[in-house]
């Protein structure tokens, strides 16, 4: 496939209460093989997917939050997180996992995959896509 499209995966739901977050991540992992220009958006309750310290032992459901840290290996390196969504929920960037990737265009330097953006910037990201998949 020669064509490259801009794909945005929009995450607006919390993890565990429903399966959308997990099944969205499964799409992202499979989609990585197609070498498209991939971005992930986390807004509204979707920001809860990225929080630190999730421990699901008590509910018997697999903790999939570590998988986000592996996204860099799949060249999924653009995770846009909306500041206003964090603020409304009493969260700051410090409450999120550190997610890094190695930039092959910059001597494999480690860089953060999470990009905090304002609501207006998130709207710009959304308006700059070819395909928007919502979960």
């Amino acid at each position, binding site marked *: 496939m020669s064509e490259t499209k801009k794909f945005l995966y929009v995450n*607006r739901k919390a993890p565990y209460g429903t399966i959308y977050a997990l099944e969205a991540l499964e799409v992202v992992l499979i989609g990585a093989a197609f070498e498209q220009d991939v971005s992930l958006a986390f807004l509204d309750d979707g920001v809860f997917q990225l929080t630190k310290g999730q421990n699901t032992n008590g509910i018997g459901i697999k903790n999939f939050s570590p998988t986000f840290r592996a996204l860099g290996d799949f060249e999924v390196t653009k995770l846009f997180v909306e500041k206003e969504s964090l603020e409304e929920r009493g969260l700051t960037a410090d409450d999120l996992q550190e997610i890094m990737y190695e930039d092959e265009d910059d001597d494999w330097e480690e860089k953060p995959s999470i990009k905090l953006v304002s609501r207006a910037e998130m709207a710009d990201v959304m308006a700059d896509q070819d395909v928007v998949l919502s979960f």
Partner: protein
Amino acid sequence: MSTLHTVNKSPFSTQSLQSCLNHCKDGDAVLMIEDGVYGALTNSNMSKQVQTKAGNVTIYVLSPDADARGLIGDKLLGEVIAVDYAGFVKLVTKHDRTQNWL
């Protein structure tokens, strides 16, 4: 370049319409479908916000869904344009992408 946004949930029970209105851009279109059509109600506590936004964004309601819920005549905001499924298809093709606020 513009986007067609669809909203399928009641604005009185979820934040989907609110989040959509917060993120859509001037020149975009918002189509209310399924329980989302309640966003087009007159005299509700969402009406003013929808009317105001209608200055920058074109707001549509899917009439089969509005009819099913008894939203006809003066129950619908004058700023909102009713379309059928054929109109829905036209909106999808006319805008560059579709974003569904689930």
